[in-house]
């Protein structure tokens, strides 16, 4: 029934995707600098949300650790940015996040899902407290200055990370690894009984998603000039990807991307216009979305499609 549509869509949507990518790649040349900065911010949210969806989408384990992984990337940049070339710093930021995720995963993913959520909830706070204490007692510097990088470079790095994350998410979805993840999300006990090593599969996906968040954090740090643990580990970054992914809908890849893009743009506007109210607004939107739009935009689109072609 839908199969003819899919086959017809494939070359069509690939073509559009390609056009969009070319558009994005050439943007800095003909667009105002302000928009380049805005787009970098939007990319940041899209990458974090997309990465979050790589793990939390299929497995249904809600990770609240995004702030920790993004923050680790930011802080790595702050520590190493003066000493090492930018590409190396970015990769190290990603790797440290990766290793942190492995640790968290092996610790909590062998237990029931609730322990995982609980543990990830406080982890960014924990790291923040720990770093504050460490910096105060051992290195003497709370707060570091970051090497400044020009906006165009930041933009292109973010674009590259976005493409990498998108490609990874796409390949995972279509691979046996993705099927294993979805099986775990559907019924974990049954999944283990057909031979899936759930702990290893989950931890790997979790670490992959952390890697991209760390990469993004490491480059975005250069926009903030001054970093201290409080700035690097903002709990908002744990909350945002969840909201954006739910708003967009986690069933399809385009859901988190559009959800994040729309929300990031909204946030830029709202923060400038209503700096004192935006948390209130986001909280309200989240509750409304959960109550009335549980499958997000993707759910809306699918309902609309089903309405068109009778079942």
């Amino acid at each position, binding site marked *: 029934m839908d199969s003819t549509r899919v086959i017809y869509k494939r070359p069509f949507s690939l073509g559009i995707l390609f056009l969009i990518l070319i558009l994005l790649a050439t943007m800095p040349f003909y667009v105002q600098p302000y928009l380049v900065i805005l787009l970098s911010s939007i990319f940041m949210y899209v990458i974090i949300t997309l990465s979050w969806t790589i793990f939390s989408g299929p497995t*249904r384990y*809600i990770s609240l650790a995004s702030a920790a992984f993004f923050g680790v990337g930011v802080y790595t940049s702050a520590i190493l940015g003066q000493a090492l070339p930018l590409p190396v710093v970015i990769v190290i930021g990603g790797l440290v996040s990766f290793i942190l995720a492995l640790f968290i995963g092996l*610790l*909590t993913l062998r*237990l029931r899902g*609730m*322990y995982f*959520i*609980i*543990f990830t*909830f*406080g982890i960014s*706070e*924990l790291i923040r*407290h*720990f770093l*504050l*204490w460490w910096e*105060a*007692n051992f290195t003497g510097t709370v707060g570091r200055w970051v090497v400044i990088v020009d906006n165009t470079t930041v933009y292109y790095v973010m674009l590259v990370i976005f493409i990498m994350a998108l490609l990874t998410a796409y390949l995972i979805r279509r691979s046996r690894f993705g099927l294993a993840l979805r099986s775990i999300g559907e019924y974990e006990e049954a999944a283990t009984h057909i031979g899936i090593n759930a702990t290893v599969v989950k931890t790997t996906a979790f670490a992959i998603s952390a890697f991209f968040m760390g990469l993004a954090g490491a480059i975005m740090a250069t926009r903030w000039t001054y970093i201290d643990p409080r700035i690097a580990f903002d*709990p908002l970054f744990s*909350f945002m990807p*969840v*909201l954006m992914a*739910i708003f967009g809908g986690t069933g399809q890849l385009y859901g988190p991307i559009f959800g994040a893009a729309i929300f990031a743009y909204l946030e830029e506007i709202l923060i400038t216009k209503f700096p*004192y*109210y*935006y*948390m*209130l607004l*986001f*909280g*309200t*939107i*989240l*509750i409304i979305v*959960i*109550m009335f739009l*549980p499958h997000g935009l993707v759910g809306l689109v699918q309902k609309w499609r089903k309405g068109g072609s009778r079942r």
Partner: protein
Amino acid sequence: MFITFLDVVIGGLIMGGIYALIAVGLSLQYGVGRVLNVSHGEFIMLGAFATWSLYTVFGISPLVSLIICGPGLFLIGFLIHRTLFQYLRGTSESIGAFADSSLLASFGLLFIIQNLALLIWKADIRGLSYLNVPVSILGAIFEANRLIALLFAVGISLAFYIFLTRTRLGKAIRAAAEDPATAQVMGVNIRRVLAICFGLGALMAGFAGPLISMIYEMQPTMGLEYTIIAIIVVVLGGLGSITGSLIGGFILGLIGSVVTNFDPGLSLVAYYVIFILLLLVRPTGLLGKS
């Protein structure tokens, strides 16, 4: 030397009492209502700030605020559960889906409440100076407010413990917490019990807030840390065991007091280390079911 020891013990018991209260509150909301209420800390913060306002504007003592904030927050919690969470419960496709959506909804509450608090009270650190008079016991000098806070924290915890273990309603709540399905079969009006339990969780927050305001400083952003601590205590005591949360609260409070004595910035780190050890060795906690 002895005085420092006593100070640490008293500080630990105060913190312990407060931790016990907030952990029991969270445990009621999670154990019975199956809602992991990450906005729990915000309720505590509301209790603390309401107390501050009542004191600075109307001169109402924090001890009196206990009676105002407790039931007040109970009502708010009850209503929120009756409307938001029961709606989600009704429209969720499965228990797992409800757990997820209620978690996210409570996230939304966290942000709404915190933003409201920031709007009303601004981001400054505030403190109450109430009964800061020195009192002499056994030759050692303590502040009256700390002693009173200790009395109330331990007192309310004990009272609640007795309520849970000796009264009929208390036993019904514990039964519903440990086995909601059976409780429902046995005629317990599960929807009302759920809303009451959620409200009771808020009640605990409403008690903890004023007590905290008496001794510690407060900021509208303080909620998150208390939520995390409550969660760690609940895991320490054992998911599903309310008495475990009581005991766990005091244990963690004492540990926290000892750590704070050496280095104030490390207490949350110490709690998380305990958390990690728990997850490695005995995830079911002290009194949890194996």
